[in-house]
């Protein structure tokens, strides 16, 4: 071992880099060879358990997806609220401060993970995990794009509500085990709030389910294909309103963020948490925002459907038919494109040296090329277009959530409960009955 260490120490920096690259290349090559040799049995094994593979793959992807999603939403929240407050917000780390949330994440990782005296340590440790997993698992049933979903269950909506309801268990665990009265109050508040709002939340969707006749989210999205007038929002405006309000409360967002009302009960259930355990709570909150927005879009705004039937552009041109000319094109087009794009700058601005014009041309060419590839993907790959529409709609709702947080003060706990039971519940029941009556009426008249 000392020999290896000594040899390593004697290397220069470029030598170390080269050696590392060399070793890495060797490893990868070996792995590739092994894969090719054993590809048949591996593929067979995977093919035999396809649903399981699909589930594990989807769970991994979804789990990995939550982190950048949370970062993005945290950044959006910091930046949008800052702009509404007439300040700039994050603007130092990365372009327009966009990496600040990443830095926050690293900071949270590096902080001391502290367990207070008197806390119930196992429960205290488990609570963030429960909350985080509950929100991550709900992502499995959300259809992001045609064919791009974890699992197409026929009871997807039921699964969604069941699992997202588990999140409150984590909050309650955290509040109870922290051995802090503020945490306890926060945990109890969240329990009361989530249980109250679960009722109108579910009831508001029942009307929609009667209309659609299915609980599969994928099927619901397919039902809304066509023009934007086919979206369920036009048939269920009251249902949407109730759903949106109740979902805000479910996600613990302003004006219903009583569980972590910092001016009253410090940070609620998260008062005693620090380090990555707090990070899990924090991430779960923002993943929840994404999930709630995604579900709203899926149920009422046509999911990944475009707002109008997109004209089919048949690509008559098949790049594969060019043969060897394709290779030549790949070699020639970047150079020619860069030159062509650089020309106007060089010719029209006499003060500009040629290399600067070349740089500008290269950058422009890259932009054009990326846009072209994306446009091609958008047109020819169905799931890219679907994903883009879905994300566009979802982040619109995320923006609305952040906007509300920037504007509204917090309601009081008794007003919150009163609102749920006295207004939302009757309204959702009314919505349900009216919808049911209308469906029966239409069916009778149609028959």
């Amino acid at each position, binding site marked *: 071992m000392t020999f290896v260490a000594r040899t390593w120490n004697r290397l220069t920096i470029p030598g170390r880099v080269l050696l590392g690259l060399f070793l890495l290349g060797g490893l990868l090559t070996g792995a590739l060879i092994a894969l090719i040799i054993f590809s048949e049995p591996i593929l067979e094994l995977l093919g035999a358990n396809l649903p399981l593979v699909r589930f594990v793959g989807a769970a991994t992807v979804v789990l990995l997806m939550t982190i950048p999603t949370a970062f993005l939403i945290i950044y959006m929240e910091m930046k949008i609220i800052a702009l509404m407050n*007439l300040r700039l917000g994050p603007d130092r780390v990365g372009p327009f401060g966009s990496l600040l949330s990443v830095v926050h994440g690293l900071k949270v990782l590096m902080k001391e993970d502290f367990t207070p005296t008197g806390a119930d340590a196992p429960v205290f440790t488990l609570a963030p995990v429960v909350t985080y997993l509950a929100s991550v698992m709900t992502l499995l049933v959300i259809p992001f794009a045609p064919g791009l979903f974890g699992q197409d269950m026929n009871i997807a909506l039921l699964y969604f509500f069941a699992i997202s309801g588990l999140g409150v268990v984590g909050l309650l665990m955290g509040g109870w085990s922290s051995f802090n009265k503020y945490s306890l109050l926060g945990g109890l508040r969240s329990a009361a709030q989530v249980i109250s709002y679960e009722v109108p939340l579910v009831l508001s969707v029942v009307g929609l389910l009667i209309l659609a006749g299915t609980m599969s989210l994928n099927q619901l999205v397919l039902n809304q294909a066509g023009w934007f007038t086919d979206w369920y929002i036009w048939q269920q405006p009251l249902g949407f309103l109730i759903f949106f309000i109740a979902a805000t409360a479910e996600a613990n967002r302003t004006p219903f963020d009583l569980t972590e009302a910092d001016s009253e*009960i410090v940070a609620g259930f998260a008062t005693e948490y620090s380090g990555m355990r707090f990070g899990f709570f924090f991430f779960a909150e923002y993943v929840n925002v994404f999930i709630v927005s995604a579900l709203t879009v899926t149920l009422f705004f046509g999911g990944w459907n475009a707002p109008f039937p997109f004209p089919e552009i048949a690509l008559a041109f098949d790049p594969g038919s060019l043969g060897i000319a394709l290779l030549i094109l790949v070699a020639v087009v970047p150079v020619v494109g860069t030159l062509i794009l650089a020309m106007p700058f060089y010719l029209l601005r006499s003060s500009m040296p040629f290399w600067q014009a070349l740089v500008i041309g290269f950058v422009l060419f890259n932009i054009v090329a990326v846009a072209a590839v994306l446009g091609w993907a958008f047109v020819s790959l169905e799931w890219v277009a679907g994903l883009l529409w879905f994300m566009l709609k979802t982040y619109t709702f995320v923006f609305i959530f952040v906007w509300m947080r920037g504007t509204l*003060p917090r309601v009081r706990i008794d007003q919150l409960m009163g609102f749920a039971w006295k207004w939302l519940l009757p309204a959702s029941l009314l919505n349900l009955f009216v919808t049911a009556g209308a469906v029966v009426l239409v069916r009778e008249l149609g028959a």
Partner: protein
Amino acid sequence: MTATSSRPSADDPRITLDQELGIFEPVPPYPPRTEREAEFYTLGDGQMFINMGPQHPSTHGVLRLVLKLEGEQVVDLDPVVGYLHRGVEKLCENADYHHTISQVDPLEYISALFNEWAPVMAYEKLLDVEVPRRAEYIRVLSAELNRIASHALFMGWMALDLGGLTPILWSFIERDEIVEMLGALTGQRMLFNYFRIGGVNGDLNHDFMSRLGDWMTRATDQIEANLTLLNTNEIFVRRMRGLGTIDGQTALQMCWTGPNLRATGLPFDIRRAHPFSVYQELDFDIPTRIEGDCLARYLLRLDEIKQSLRIIDQCLHRMPDGPIMAKLPRLIRPRPGRAYAAVESPRGQYAAYAISDGTDQPFRLRIHDPSFIHLQSVGQLVQGQLIADTMAVMASLDPVMGGVDK
């Protein structure tokens, strides 16, 4: 006086470090000394104490509130103050008359000009000095600007304690403009040290006047625009209306003054009730409201901002020419006597009571702070309300702990 118990207090650093870490209960470690303390620190069935502060996101400084709760409902409340006590009155007894002005400056640090004004007026009475009229007008002008800054900040705090993030930053922008302006006039942004015995420290300058003129043209619109965020907001209004209600007679009994008293319908304002400076020559109204709840206290301060703008406008139009300092020796030794002077600060009657013994240091300087008086009635106002309302009521009284703790 001897300590009533051999058990030391939890505040003693020697003890907390040596003893094993335990759970901090707000119950004091000695037998109760008064009836009230005994009554408060006895828990009923299903009640618990919760310690709000001294480190808490929204206590407006280092204030500790011991809440006795029944669920989320506040049964009783015991404010514990003194964490910021600096003994300013004692320091003033050991300082030159001129030095005391900067000693009292950081008391109510949100509206520091009023802190200077009351002692300075008291000293002027002791010395029988007549302040030049231009100095008086400059004092009124700058003090009213400071009042607007203070009220603007109050608006933001109020919203922040109710969970609104945005208004505090908007009002800080508003306050920052005024404070920059006063910085151009006085030389400092927060603790001005501007009023001197017999006048003010510097005359109006171009920098100040141009900033003021620029701001005056858009102040009203800007403040009004900021207010639409909250004034018609259903959540805000529903939370504030009928909360922490007090009637005029009780408020008078609790020695309330300022906007808090005026929100109960009594038009008591030192500027009119016992006119000082040149307020008698100025034309302005005393806005009142009759409800006496948090919303009334909030809205009343907004009305006051408009009146302050009127006063500033008149000051600018009537500003006389002349000296800004009375002729006084550098070392002042007032003849023995007593003087009481009160000004209407943004929080109420801010008063100073000075006794001179003929030396160059005040024999006694008593500072009367309105926040101190208002804070003691929080307990009455929030009884039976929820925890969330404790903060709302606290915020609506607008206490500044620097002034409370002296």
